[in-house]
């Protein structure tokens, strides 16, 4: 049988040295333990970077050019995101002790506050954090509105932000029932009946929220799963889209700054 001669793939003449394999700095031929230790961090990051190609993405994402006049108001969006992260983390850990059963919910919430170590603190973070998040969402929206940052080409980001506002409100609505005391029970009854007041679709919406015509066994767990699974997932995904668009489109200069003339700009750069 004749030997099949495969064509050789095109290779560069000299492959560049792999990162981290250069001659050590100490002058000796063999790298010592110290050299390895000194390079461990960089080598790990390099290993990851070589395989994910993350650094060009991160460079573009984190080292963006920002317009002149960028000020503290521009941090409201990040502040909102950290408020959401606070809610997510404290919520996940509250879920370890909470029981969404109408006969046990109140006692489990009381157990978190009174018995669990740091329970009152974590529950407090979640409770007050929700108010902080709503406040920050509105401040962030006000900043966007008054700085005209919703205009072309950022309209889509305004719309995503609007959906995020709605989802935040839904989080507040569904979370309010969970402590299951008198206040949260009756507030939720009123809130569900408010939904019911919409013509034609309203009563069906209320039935969906209650899982029936009256407050029943599944209403609380329904609110709980909407509160901790459905909406947080949607919020996290939309925050991703929101951030992507911010990174892609850049931020706006505050409206009180006049646009510089192109000529001056080019002269400055030269």
């Amino acid at each position, binding site marked *: 049988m004749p030997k099949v001669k495969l064509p050789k793939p095109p290779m560069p003449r000299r492959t560049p040295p792999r990162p981290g394999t250069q001659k050590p700095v100490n002058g000796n031929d063999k790298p010592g333990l110290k050299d390895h230790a000194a390079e461990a961090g960089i080598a790990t990051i390099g290993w990851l970077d070589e395989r994910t190609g993350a650094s060009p993405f991160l460079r573009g994402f984190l080292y963006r050019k920002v317009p002149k006049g960028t000020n503290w108001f521009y941090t409201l969006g990040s502040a909102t995101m950290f408020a959401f992260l606070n809610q997510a983390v404290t919520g996940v850990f509250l879920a370890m002790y909470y029981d969404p059963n*109408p*006969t046990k919910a109140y006692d489990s919430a009381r157990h978190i506050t009174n018995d669990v170590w740091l329970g009152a603190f974590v529950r407090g973070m979640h409770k007050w954090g929700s108010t902080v998040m709503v406040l920050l969402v509105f401040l962030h929206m006000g900043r966007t509105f008054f700085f005209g940052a919703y205009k072309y080409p950022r309209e889509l980001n305004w719309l995503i932000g609007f959906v995020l506002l709605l989802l935040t409100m839904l989080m507040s609505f569904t979370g309010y029932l969970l402590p*299951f005391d008198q206040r949260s*029970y*009756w507030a939720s*009854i*009123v809130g*569900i*009946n*408010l939904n*019911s*007041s919409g*013509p*034609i679709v*309203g*009563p*069906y919406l*209320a*039935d*969906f929220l*209650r*899982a*029936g*015509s*009256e*407050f*029943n*066994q*599944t209403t609380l767990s329904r609110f709980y799963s909407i509160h901790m699974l459905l909406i947080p997932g949607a919020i996290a995904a939309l925050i991703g889209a929101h951030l992507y668009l911010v990174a892609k489109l850049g931020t706006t200069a505050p409206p009180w700054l006049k646009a510089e003339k192109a000529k001056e700009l080019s002269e400055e750069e030269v």
Partner: protein
Amino acid sequence: MARAPKKRKSPYTADRNTPGAFEGETVTRRGLMTAGALGVGGLATMAFGLPALGFALGPNFSQTEPHRWQDVGPEEDFGTQAYVQKIIDLIPDVADSGKTTIYVRKTDPAKDDKKLQDQPYVAISNRCMHLGCPVRYVQAAQRFICPCHGGVYGPNGEVTGGPPVRPLDRFYTKVENGRVQVGPRFSLDSHFNRFPHPRDPSNHLDGLWQYLYPSRPTT
């Protein structure tokens, strides 16, 4: 300027100069694969998406308020004048959140509406018809008063003030072996016309409003 007549594309890939076209072929292989992959992906998504959606929406389409009769006491306990306060289960097994207060008295042919006199007893629900808060009967004022937004009802449950949109709901009643039993809920419009499929609080029922707030499969 007259528009050039629209060129009709040939259905055959060979006539359209598609690379790799076959004789008599109308769909390219790439097009078929794309449509096939999208179709199969869509089917797979629907295979779990639709059951999940039906699972979440299911309670909307089944009757969830059980029609049960509950004993509230012997006939001697109730007169035609004063309301007696009783607590019944709307939904069992959810502790206090499934209970509701009702106000019961004997039907009085002199003051009760003729349309409702087939019921031996009057059992008024304490659910406010504004947004569902619990009303209480104040004997001195002869009024049902809502703590939330100022709804006020007269002694028969008719609206006398505040935001409620219709009279207080009632429950069907019957007498069995000398004991009063309370059954399913029903709603009333402001002329005491009966709606056997009870509506939610905040739903108007007068005139054309009843069609904007239709009866649902759950009641």
